[in-house]
């Protein structure tokens, strides 16, 4: 009887203890970036005796869920993971809680710049993503080609390799929306164009912007047919299968390029900075940030978690789980440098990377711009007409938002 009572008491105490446990709800991206954070969250939960609930959502749904939560102040999430172009929209109307203390100087400047709104920090950078230029080093050596530092040289090399190897010299993605815009931005910047002029008006009808799109169509001629409908997975599939020689890509694919189980050409891809044209090459930034919604019921614990998760030891763990870090010290750690051969290129790209325009309307602008780019790449309209169309639609979006 006494034994039974003891067991019942122990069970009761266990229940009451677990019932009083705080629950931290975290919204993460379903993918490698989110997996690392998920693992870190469970570790932190053990350390702080806090229950962790991870809401894992695909990229397309993550923004809508977070945006709805922040707008309606439901407090459904204590920590949100966000792609950096979403920051202006999500930080608007006091949706996020300001950081209680500024981030330290070890974070890379480009990744910190996208965490700030009107001088106040609202997020911490977790994944240091920026584009890299992937190319087949073995084929460049075979055809005695110099490393792809200039876009003009990239096109020449693509023609040479394409003809010599019976493969595609280049591969890019031009599906409407994010895909087309992401692959076009480094070209636009290198050719001296931009989406907005210094006064904030759309400037896509500039000669530089049109020239950049014409060049993109030239690259399209040495790319696989149907690239106007490609997304990231098709581009990487061509590289992994050895059917294309060069592309712009993201660090998340580096590990696969060296993995013999996934790649037919393991170790043959080299990673370089964005090629130049009229101006030096610049990569697009695509960092993942961590922030605490204003309506979070557990703000103190949420901040404790995001500072812990972005500290150097945890970013080292995250790097081992496949996430590029946002701290210089982690990029320069000798153990990691030995393990990740692309780290020096990644650090250099990240230091000079440029974010997408910081506007609340970015998703709508990117969609309108991406549709026009995809139409030009599919041959539906001319480069001039595409840029005119994008310019008009972006101007209308800005007008409506006033």
């Amino acid at each position, binding site marked *: 009887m006494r034994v039974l009572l003891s067991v019942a008491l122990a069970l009761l105490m266990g229940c009451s203890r677990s019932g009083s446990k705080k629950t931290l709800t975290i919204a993460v991206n379903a993918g490698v970036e989110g997996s690392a954070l998920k693992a870190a969250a469970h570790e932190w939960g053990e350390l702080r005796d806090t229950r962790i609930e991870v809401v894992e959502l695909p990229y397309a749904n993550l923004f809508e869920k977070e945006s709805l939560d922040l707008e309606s102040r439901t407090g459904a999430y204590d920590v949100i993971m966000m792609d950096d172009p979403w920051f202006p929209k999500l930080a608007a109307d006091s949706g996020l809680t300001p950081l209680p203390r500024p981030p330290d100087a070890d974070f890379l400047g480009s990744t910190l710049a996208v965490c700030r709104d009107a001088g106040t920090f609202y997020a911490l950078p977790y994944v240091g993503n920026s584009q890299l230029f992937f190319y087949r080093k073995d084929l460049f050596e075979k055809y005695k080609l110099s490393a792809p530092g200039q876009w003009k040289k990239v096109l020449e090399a693509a023609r040479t390799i394409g003809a010599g190897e019976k493969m595609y010299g280049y591969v890019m993605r031009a599906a409407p*929306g994010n895909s087309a815009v992401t692959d076009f931005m480094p070209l636009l910047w290198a050719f001296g164009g931009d989406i907005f002029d210094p006064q904030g008006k759309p400037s896509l009808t500039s000669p530089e912007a049109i020239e950049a799109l014409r060049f993109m169509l030239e690259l399209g001629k040495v790319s696989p047919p149907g690239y106007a409908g490609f997304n990231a997975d098709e581009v990487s599939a061509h590289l992994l299968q050895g059917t294309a020689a060069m592309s712009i890509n993201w660090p998340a694919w580096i590990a696969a390029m060296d993995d013999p189980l996934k790649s037919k050409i393991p170790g043959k891809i080299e990673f370089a900075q964005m090629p130049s044209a009229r101006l030096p090459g610049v990569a697009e930034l695509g960092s993942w940030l961590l922030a605490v919604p204003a309506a979070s019921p557990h703000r103190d614990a949420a901040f404790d978690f995001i500072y812990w998760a972005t500290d150097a030891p945890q970013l080292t763990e995250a790097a081992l789980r496949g996430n590029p870090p946002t701290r210089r010290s982690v990029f320069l750690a000798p153990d990691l440098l030995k393990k990740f051969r692309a780290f020096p290129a990644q650090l250099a790209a990240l230091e000079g990377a440029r974010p997408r325009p910081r506007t609340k309307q970015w*998703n709508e602008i990117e969609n309108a711009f991406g549709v026009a780019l995809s139409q030009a*790449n599919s041959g539906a309209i001319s480069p001039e007409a595409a840029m005119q169309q994008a310019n008009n639609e972006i101007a209308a979006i800005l007008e409506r938002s006033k």
Partner: protein
Amino acid sequence: MTRRVPPGLIWVAPAMVVLAALSIYPLLYLVKVSISDARGFTLAHYARLFQDRLFMVAAGQTLLYALAALALEFFFGLALALLVDSLAHGRALVRVSLLAPMLLPPVVAAVIWRLIYNPEFGVLNGMLRQLGFHTQSLTWTSGRNSAMLSVILVDVWQWTPFMFLLLTAGLQAIPSEPLEAARVDGAGYWRTLRDVVLPLLKPTILLALLLRSMDLLRIFDQIFILTQGGPGSATETVSLYIYRTAFRFSNFGYAAAMSFVGLVITTLAARSLMRLIKTS
């Protein structure tokens, strides 16, 4: 004197509450959102509809998609139903195997077809190459001219079995007497089909067309997975555009206006078909 509550009202009350909560309130809320913005009452969202090039393109393409898919699904569904109905043996087995595509969730079907359509690594072009065809220009969902046809074919593949199922049920419900009378009168197969089978099958045909057309006009998942509306805006549909406007651009007022117009069009189309069913 107390008024007695009619007993029928008590029985339908739970259903009415559920209907009000799940259909009527959301509909009224949708209308409210569509005619308001941060400053109050506005008809600007409806005015924008007629100036929005992409909405017009999406509306035209949705109609094209629905009509083409409906015509093909009806044609193949009827042909298969007649063929299976004429089989002497193994009808049940053929019927079950024909239903397989319909049992897949649309998202799964779209992912399968995305892999099949891949120009370089897909099984379709691979097979064509084996047969000696040049597949360089066969880019399927990525081609400006072939994207719409490709997504329509996926719908036809998945939903023809639904047409087949309904029409088979309709064929089996036709009494044998008129068919025997036609045979005795010397009518051949085609004459019997035109003058006896199809008129008797008309209510089932209209019901099948009604159900499919309502589904087709709100097509979303397959196109979202296969093309995301591209290349360019070649496969953009109204549902896709509404989704983007609401959840990517956070413009709920304009999305609500588009949804309301879409609802009105679908309701009008359904009403006309239902009237035809009644008169038949």
